[in-house]
């Protein structure tokens, strides 16, 4: 069955599904008619060094995807849909084994001003050491991105996706396998699109893998940002942490749903997920639902938690007592809240870059 037929064979999901409780599929589909598989444009991709120059040897981008896997999870609808519509927009980002770069590499994705879509396969060779920033920008009404791939054994990868779309809808699906003893930090920084639906899945099916999934989400006005994160422990001695911070202003809404699965046989697994939401207005709304499925008894620990709250007035008073005016105090506290996850996404230079980006969104002093 080809990918179009596979998509069309699926039922439209309803709200009883964990993944679709808050954001209906027809609200995300590029036409709203879920029975259609529309033709979409391709974005313009560029691989550039952190200083704007050329990237070092050993990392490249090429057209075409030779193999991909959509990880099993809650359901496969979004991934299947994106695979069906990315026939002419497939790329592979290849990182040679033992690649190492002193500075982060930026994958710039210009989604243009029309509906566009991308399938990006990540092929990260063994023992690689890389910080990759995927920067999405554009003014189109719809952009979809499917990322599939493998992180080679023993690699150390900081993989940060930054969404800076002016408006419109972003559909993002990640389906990433993490190799033996690989260490991955997967960061998401989102403050652009009017509506986001992200379905991020990671699988550790070889021993020793380590994963930190981090989110810094800033929602304003009437934005609706829905992120679903699944982490699958399928091998012994695997480690994961999910820390997701969302700040919601105006009448925006953020949704964070987590699914942590520890399979039978994943002895020594150590996993936790925490969602924190900062509510900045009376009309803002944040929903977080972490869920666990633990089928192995011999684990180090598996936990989850969530917390919602407004800005702490005692913190505001402390900053005001140091000369911050009320708006400066508020912006500094929002930046600080988002910075606690931002600072975990990578090196100091990457962090400085991300803070600059965040501050330009907040027009705030440094976090």
């Amino acid at each position: 069955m080809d990918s179009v037929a596979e998509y069309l064979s699926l039922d439209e999901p309803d709200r009883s599904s964990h993944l679709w409780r808050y954001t209906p599929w027809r609200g995300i589909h590029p036409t709203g008619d879920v029975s259609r598989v529309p033709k979409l444009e391709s974005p313009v991709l560029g691989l550039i060094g952190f200083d704007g120059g050329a990237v070092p040897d050993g990392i490249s981008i090429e057209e075409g995807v030779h193999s991909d896997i959509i990880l099993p999870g809650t359901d496969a609808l979004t991934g299947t849909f994106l695979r069906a519509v990315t026939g002419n927009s497939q790329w592979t980002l290849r990182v040679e084994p033992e690649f190492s770069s002193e500075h982060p590499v930026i994958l710039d994705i210009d989604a243009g001003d029309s509906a566009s879509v991308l399938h990006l396969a990540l092929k990260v060779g063994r023992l690689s050491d890389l910080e990759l920033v995927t920067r999405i920008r554009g003014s189109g009404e719809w952009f979809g991105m499917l990322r599939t791939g493998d992180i080679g054994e023993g690699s150390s990868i900081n993989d940060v996706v930054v969404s800076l779309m002016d408006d419109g809808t972003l559909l993002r699906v990640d389906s990433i396998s993490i190799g033996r003893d690989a260490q991955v930090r997967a960061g998401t920084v989102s403050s652009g699109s009017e509506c986001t639906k992200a379905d991020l899945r990671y699988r550790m099916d070889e021993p020793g893998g380590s994963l930190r999934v981090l989110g810094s989400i800033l929602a304003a006005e009437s934005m609706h940002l829905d992120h679903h994160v699944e982490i699958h422990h399928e091998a012994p001695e695997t480690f994961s942490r999910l820390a997701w911070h969302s700040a919601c202003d105006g009448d925006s809404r953020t949704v964070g749903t987590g699914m942590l699965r520890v399979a039978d046989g994943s002895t020594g697994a150590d996993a936790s997920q925490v969602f924190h939401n900062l509510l900045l207005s009376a009309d803002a709304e944040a929903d977080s639902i972490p869920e666990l499925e633990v089928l192995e008894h011999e684990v180090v620990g598996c936990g989850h938690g969530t917390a919602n709250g407004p800005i702490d007035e005692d913190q505001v008073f402390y900053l005001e007592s140091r000369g911050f005016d009320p708006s400066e105090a508020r912006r500094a506290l929002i930046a600080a809240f988002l910075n606690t996850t931002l600072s975990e996404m990578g090196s100091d230079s990457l962090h400085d870059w991300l803070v600059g980006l965040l501050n330009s969104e907040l027009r705030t002093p440094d976090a």
Partner: protein
Amino acid sequence: MGSGESDIEALLEIRNLHAGIDDTQILKGIDLSIAPGEIHAIMGRNGSGKTTAANIIMGHPDFEVEEGDVLLSGENLLDLEPWERAREGVFLSFQYPQAVPGLQVGNFLRKSVASIRGEEAAKGADFRRELNEAMDTLDIPRNFLSRYVNDGFSGGEKKRFEILQLQLLRPKLAILDETDSGLDIDGIKTVAAGVNAAIRGTESAALIITHYSRILEHVRPDKVHVLIDGRIVATGGPELATELEENGYDWIEGRVGAESVA
């Protein structure tokens, strides 16, 4: 019983201050006058109103002033918001400083100095030198700057960080709310040295709020006031702190009671 005459030269003048929280009156008529360059101490038991007085001067929104004035160099602070008071030169060293995870100490200090002393004061080599010298005085390591404000700090680190801010912000009036609590004797000496460096020999003034006389052995106050049940019941020189330490608050309450009867 008042603690000072009305004085147009006063840096801080509190007149007949009545204040409280949630319909509970805590301060019941405070009068206090501190001249430039002076260090005063307020001593009192838990619940006597010491921290309330500090919060009222800084402008904490939870506290309500029912009556009276708080003047800084003749300007009524009660008309100003907390951040305006800070920019006018009021500094409060908190008993329990707030942690702000995600806000780096270095950036916080630069922003605070820029807000209070102006943008130029927080820039360049001069600021870095001033910062380094103050950190050295307080025995604070350089990596402190990349930590988050009060996040995971020990009790001693929090107090030293408050005094670091005192030194950098150069306020006209520093209020130290139990800055000595939770410190060992070396910590008290370090903090006291920081207070002396910030206040002695300047036109600034300090109001030290404390339970104990230990810090006052290292920061010699010009006057000591005893606060009981929202009123200043005694004022004296540094020897009053020593007498209190030796005889306890029952002694001063008994003395005040006897004077009232007489």
